[in-house]
């Protein structure tokens, strides 16, 4: 009886995909998800402010930056919904200009404290090394490689804003909504989203090998 049930079940399991594949599908099962496709809960724990002493100084500096950002934002016509793209461009620029004035003379490393830069460098490096070379290249294939980051300059939005892998993102210290991490070349930049401004960067966090292999400026 049990054997008959198994046979019936196997028959059903075979027939149903075949039915679903009408319209030219092959009967062979589609790609299946393996263990790699499970969210690694441990790696998803991003360091939180205050709780993680390794990043205390970094979070203090981020808060200080946000004060500048918020004050600047209050002084210029704020970005809000508009049908006029001229206003979008003008307001983004106005905010960036205000911040540039407030942060005149800002240097690389002003926000990423040395300890945070070190820790983040280790996290990014280990993440890349744990990925197959093909995946490393895939991450970097759309990263603009030939534009060196410079503090207080605009991110070149005519180039792609390359995706930061979500599983890496979740290992990095959590940022306020106004800021984000991005790759620019082999560097990790801290970008002010609303002002489209490069706030700071950690140089050469991405291991050299994949950067060399992903040699194009920006894949389209």
């Amino acid at each position, binding site marked *: 009886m049990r054997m008959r049930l198994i046979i019936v079940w196997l028959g059903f*399991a075979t027939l*149903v*995909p075949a*039915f*679903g*594949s*009408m*319209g*030219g*599908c*092959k009967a*062979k*099962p*589609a*790609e*299946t*998800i393996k263990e*790699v*496709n*499970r*969210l*690694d809960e441990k790696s*998803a724990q*991003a360091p939180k402010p205050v709780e993680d002493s390794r990043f205390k100084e970094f979070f203090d500096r981020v808060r200080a930056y946000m004060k500048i950002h918020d004050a600047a934002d209050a002084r210029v016509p704020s*970005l*809000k*919904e*508009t*049908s*006029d*793209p*001229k206003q*979008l*461009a003008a307001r*983004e620029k106005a905010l960036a200009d205000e911040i540039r004035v407030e942060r005149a003379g800002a240097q690389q490393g002003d926000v990423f404290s040395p300890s945070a830069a070190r820790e983040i460098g280790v996290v990014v490096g280990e993440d890349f090394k744990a990925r197959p070379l093909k*995946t490393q290249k*895939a991450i970097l294939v*759309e990263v603009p490689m030939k534009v060196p980051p410079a503090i207080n300059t605009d991110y070149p*939005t*005519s180039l*792609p*804003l*390359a*995706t*930061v*892998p*979500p*599983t*890496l*993102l*979740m290992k990095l210290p*959590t940022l306020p*909504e106004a800021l*984000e991490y991005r790759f620019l070349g082999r560097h990790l930049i801290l970008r002010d*989203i*609303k002002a*489209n401004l490069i706030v700071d960067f950690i140089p050469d966090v991405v291991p050299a090998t994949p950067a060399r292999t992903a040699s194009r400026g920006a*894949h*389209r």
Partner: protein
Amino acid sequence: MTRHGTGLASAALLLVSGLSLTGTAQKVTLPLAADSTRFAVIGDTGTGDKPQYEVGRRLEEYRQRVNFTFTIMVGDNIYGSERPQDFQKKFELPYKPLLDAGVTFYAALGNHDDPNQRFYKPFSMNGERFYTFTKGNIDFFVLDSNYMDRKQLDWLERALKGSNASWKIAYFHHPLYSSGESHGSEVDLRTVLEPLFVKYRMDVVFAGHEHFYERVKPQKGIYYFTCGGSAKLRRGNIRKGSELTAKGDDAANTFMIVEVTKDVLNFQTVSGAGLTIDSGAIQRPQPHAVR
């Protein structure tokens, strides 16, 4: 009834008619039911080049026939520079007839889009990188796949948990499954999104990024479409013999028209020349089905 795995989920696919080789321009394969919700899908659009305008004209022809009221954009809405004149050349002019007819556009951000596009009113993003909206019996979940952080994932889970709509449709730029030679499946993104999609019974997912059309065989009960060829085209880029592909076309610029009734989602994929590339219907699972 269970919808777990690709097997039983595939049973929900009622009909797929495949390529219409004789494809008649302006042929509509949708049922055009009285109480349905109709929309268009376009992706990787913002070039300002001839193919985008051609697709725009074709969309208007189909709007007149199908009367869809909104369009979803799966990202790369404005390529290259984003000066005010670029918004005109790469969005407002190609879709002027649709905009004039009152068609609403709901955009997702692609990797070529400045996130400040969220403040551009015609994209209906309400100042948000990720958002949700409801049309008829459908809840749409619009994600920013360029920056899938914990905050966005938490938001998505809350939004999905609170959704009681008959249909749940997500769209964003990067495809979780793709047979593209250039990019392929976004496995890292899939790692974080798919568990939520399965848990909260996402029905259909639209993406772009790959400059072609692909209907993927159902994965864990979810239907995936890539519609990233509405202006750009990566000819010959669909991996031949891919086990993911249910139907693919990398020879023409394409857009999709979708019609959703209570229990069935009908789709028609059309080329810029007006040929029907793909069409079919997806049956909604039983309300209490378990995946």
